């Protein structure tokens, strides 16, 4: 007869092995990018324009471009996302409309990134005649991160206890006053977490900006929202596949700056969430 204890040990070993197969490569990837990218990082690398056909110099225009894009995306997506979350958490009834809205959010989150790129090209670049510009890119990225912001904010607002709202309403506050002065302040950490995660996602995506804003080589800082701009992820793509003979140092350095930017945002989100959990125990 088979020994169930031994079977369990073997099974758990394989489960552990599967977990290690995911976690170890992640660690290796991060470590190797940091190790090979760190020597490239210097003041000059971060503040100079690309030189020698992008084989030397720095990546400042790409960093600035990405910051503009991310900022633009959030300015567009945060108000809409937050209001949408307020609607779902405070106003929506359990009806067909709510069901369709939730389904739309799920679908928005699942649309392939390159399809966002096509959409941005057709709507913003061509139809609205914004051209390939920071405006088109920001709007495209903004719609892409919308579901992240809505979902996180909604969870945050829904986790505020019902009793808080009842007390506020019983004191004579209107529905909106209750939301503005009771629900929002108590859900702010979750909203912040969602927003930062959205920022990180927008900073790292390449496909949506390919045809809406990204410039192959544009060695100056953008002057208006109608300018084209370089961006970190697209720059990494360009120097690792389109331009021959770019040194490892440049490529790993760019990868490290991008990865660092995204991971810092995610760590901040993690810390905000953690502190929130510790502070609030209702």
């Amino acid at each position, binding site marked *: 007869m088979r020994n169930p204890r031994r079977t*369990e040990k073997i099974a758990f070993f394989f489960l552990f092995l599967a977990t290690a197969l*995911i976690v170890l490569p992640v660690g290796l990837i991060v470590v190797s990018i940091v190790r090979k990218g760190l020597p490239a990082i210097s003041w000059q690398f971060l503040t100079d324009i690309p030189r020698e056909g992008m084989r030397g110099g720095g990546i400042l225009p790409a960093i600035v471009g990405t910051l503009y894009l991310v900022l633009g995306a959030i300015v567009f997506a945060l108000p809409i996302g937050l209001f*949408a979350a307020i609607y779902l958490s405070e*106003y929506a009834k359990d009806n067909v409309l709510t069901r369709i809205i939730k389904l739309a959010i*799920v679908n928005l989150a699942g*649309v392939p990134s*390159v*399809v966002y790129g096509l959409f941005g090209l*057709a709507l913003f670049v061509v139809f609205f005649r914004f051209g390939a510009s920071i405006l088109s890119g920001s709007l495209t990225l903004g719609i892409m991160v919308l579901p992240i912001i809505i979902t996180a904010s909604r969870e945050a607002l829904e986790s505020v206890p019902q009793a808080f709202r009842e007390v506020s309403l019983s004191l004579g506050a209107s529905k909106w006053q209750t939301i503005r002065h009771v629900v929002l302040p108590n859900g702010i950490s979750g909203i912040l977490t969602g927003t930062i995660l959205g920022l990180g996602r927008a900073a790292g995506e*390449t496909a949506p900006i390919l045809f809406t804003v990204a410039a192959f080589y544009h060695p100056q800082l953008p002057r208006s929202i109608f300018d084209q701009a370089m961006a970190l992820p697209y720059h990494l793509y360009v120097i690792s596949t389109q331009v021959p003979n770019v040194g490892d140092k440049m490529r790993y350095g760019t990868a490290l700056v991008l990865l660092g930017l995204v991971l810092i945002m995610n760590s901040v989100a993690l810390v905000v969430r953690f502190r929130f959990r510790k502070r609030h125990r209702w």
Partner: protein
Amino acid sequence: MRRLKEFVLQKIVLLCGVASILFVALIFLFLVKEGLNVFKAVSPSHFLLGRSWYPISEPAQFGILPLILGSLLVTAGATVISVAIGVACAVYIAEVARPAVRETLKVGIELLAAIPSIVLGFIGMVTLVPWVKKIFHLPTGLTALSGSIMLAFMAMPTIVSIAEDALHAVPRSYKEGAYALGATRWQTIHRVILRAASPGIAAAVMLGIGRVIGETMAVMMITGNAAVIPHGILQPVRTLTATIAGEMGEAAVGSEHYYALFAIGTLLFVISFGINVTADLLLHKRRS
């Protein structure tokens, strides 16, 4: 006055609430509006089943069968790898690991989800591709297999986190009942918990597949981009997504090529829509 303010705010909030529906509709509308134009140049059956994709030769040929097969091949490979490992990892995190280990592993998985696809593509290009070339003695390591391995990694955070949620949602009483009958932890896991969580796990797998089909940059960098009908997993292939990303830059707005790429985008949108709706139904079934 106050009532008016409340009323206006309520309408604004409602408007933002339905904005998501509006955006999904807009995306679909603009893809279809541009994509349908391709059928002036090529019939739907030739488009979907045509065996040659030569968009810039004279006369141009817009058959996307090689691209569909390329996407399917890479996705199938990635699914096999990521489902086995991903579900096992979810079980380990949800049922086996101690709480401190569990939190660390979850952070590790979130870390993987946060790495931009272009960075993973770059790492795949400089490490995985040479390995595949060496191990299988191939003329090039830019193959469907390399793409599958890389994409499996990108699907895993989705699969692990959703499957783990599903495992967590299994009522405690099921587990306690199994233990009371003398089952070991493993017996309880694979005969009771996995079975009870199966709709949620199925949803996790579907969303993982959705992630893989839509992935663009990494796949473009490491699958070799040969638009021919693939005969094996060790050959270069080209996916639907990589075709759009790689060619749209050169296609003139309003050309047949431009419309053909939008038609491919429409196909991708329809696939992801189907996957997401099905997964949502599965997750909904679990809750009710």
